[in-house]
């Protein structure tokens, strides 16, 4: 007997149906959105007005200009937790049994989830940009460059979503997803140039910062939005010299590793 094949078109259309369902949920339960957005806004205010005064940024630039692209990067990384949270939530509910008993594509639940989270990231970037403008951040390069900056953030966010999808499938509950994801997120976002200039890190930490993709996404955004100090040279690691390319390579590598891992994990928990 030959098995019924799942054409690629089904993966796309099923993923789309699941994504639509998730977006409806964002609309119906906006409290989750509010909750997840509040923390980056708090970070902007905290760093702009509390810690900012104590942080020395080299060159002729206001700390808030320096900070906001870093907060963007942090926001999309934090936002990816939403993916893990949503999947873990689905896995605990009866709806997943329904999905599993349907002739739909096995990866549709994951493809749909990561896709709908792009919508979520767009919303959160808009809110973060508005918050940034309020505290004095400005886009100083062209519109095209700025758009490129936002697209880069979304692509990177999509990649991180796949890591969190894997985490969401591995751990048994929504609460644990939160804790588990912090183990990944905290070092990535704080040991980076997002909040403090990389010169302030010492020795091996500085090397980590230079090659940390969160740093390069931040650096790329600073360049694309025109938030760099003109008189400060870019650190001379290849990653920091080519932040867009380096960040995209990371995004591609993350998806290449975590998409198959997640699909495998989903199947494993399905076929026991």
């Amino acid at each position, binding site marked *: 007997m030959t098995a019924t094949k799942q054409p690629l078109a089904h993966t796309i259309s099923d993923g789309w*149906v699941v994504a639509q369902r998730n977006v409806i*949920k964002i609309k119906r339960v906006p409290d989750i959105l509010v909750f997840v957005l509040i923390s980056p806004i708090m970070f902007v205010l905290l760093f702009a007005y509390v810690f900012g005064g104590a942080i020395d940024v080299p060159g002729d630039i206001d700390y808030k200009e320096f900070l906001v692209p870093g907060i963007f990067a942090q926001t999309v990384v934090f936002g990816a937790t939403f993916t893990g949270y949503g999947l873990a939530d689905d896995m605990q509910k009866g709806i997943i049994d329904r999905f599993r008993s349907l002739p739909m594509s096995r990866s549709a639940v994951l493809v749909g989830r990561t896709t709908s989270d792009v919508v979520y990231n767009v919303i959160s970037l808009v809110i973060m940009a508005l918050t940034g403008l309020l505290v004095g951040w400005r886009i100083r390069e062209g519109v095209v460059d700025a758009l490129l900056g936002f697209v880069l953030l979304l692509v990177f966010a999509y990649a991180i979503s796949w890591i969190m999808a894997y985490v969401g499938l591995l751990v048994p509950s929504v609460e644990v997803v939160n804790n588990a994801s912090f183990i990944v997120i905290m070092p990535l976002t704080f040991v980076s140039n997002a909040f403090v200039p990389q010169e302030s890190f010492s020795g091996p930490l500085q090397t980590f910062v230079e090659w940390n993709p969160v740093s390069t996404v931040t650096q790329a955004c600073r360049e694309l939005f025109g938030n760099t100090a003109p008189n400060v040279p870019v650190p001379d690691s290849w990653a920091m010299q080519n932040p867009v390319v380096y960040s995209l390579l990371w995004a591609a590598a993350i998806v290449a590793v975590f998409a198959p891992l997640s699909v495998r994990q989903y199947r494993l928990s399905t076929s026991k």
Partner: protein
Amino acid sequence: MTEMIRATGLVKRYKEVEALAGLDITVPEGKVLALLGPNGAGKTTAVRVLTTLIKPDAGTAQVAGVDVLADPVGVRARIGLSGQYAAVDEHLTAYENLVMIGRLYHLGKGKAQERAHALLERFDLTEFAHRPSKTYSGGQRRRLDLAGALVAEPPVLVLDEPTTGLDVRSRQQMWDVIRELVAGGATLLLTTQYLEEADRLADNILVIDHGRGIAEGTADELKARTGGERIEVVLADAEDRDAATRVLAEVTVDGVRTSDNGRELTAAVSGGAADLLRVLQGFERETVTVVDVGLRRPTLDDVFLALTGHVAEESESSGGDSDTDETQKELIR
């Protein structure tokens, strides 16, 4: 006659627990089979194997002629599953739930919408069709869940404890709906803990215990093996025993049994309430005073007692509260 469900020697182990221990299931086309058993007997595990949610450790199964291991996607296209936990998205409306399911069966958007409307009408859900389903009552949710199983008009339906946890009225409604489906020619596998439910809905009943079938037959056949219905009397005074026995002897089909203390009498009957009425009139005439008198229909416990010599165990050493708990854990893992 074509067999729409055919499973042989299904085995499924969870650590030390043998949820299925060589279960055979056969359901001919257009027939209804009830899997009857207590919590932990393996009903839900059997359902999950047949609906491709889990793989058996041993044994084979075909649903609508398609092998569950060789072609799970093919099986999924031919079945509708409604579980004991209503598998609907609570933030979506009934309409959105049904359209989503239709599209995931690849019916196409237009057809999915058409089916959703038809099913909402049929299941009496039109009134709440555009409210999020978390606002529904238990019975409404369960009806929506069942509607979900019918979206693609699959030839085989699998209902896992469709009325567990419902109140009497909702249960009655579900029974009506299910009977309609059956009248429409659906092949149905249903699990239940209630003999009455199996009796009302199924052509055939397979009693399972510890993961294997222990008896199969029609409701009447099973009841015959359990002694059918009986009248039970508790006397106020043991001195009335002889008079009461005389009255019961007029209606019984199988003699009158008396307990050791002489106050509790049991008589197998076949005439139901009419027999009970005659007994009550007899007691009145003979001035027999009773503490309690009642007509008892056989329950799952009686069937179990008759078939296995022990009552239906809710839980045993490691079988735990149920196979559903076990599979829930499995699902989360």
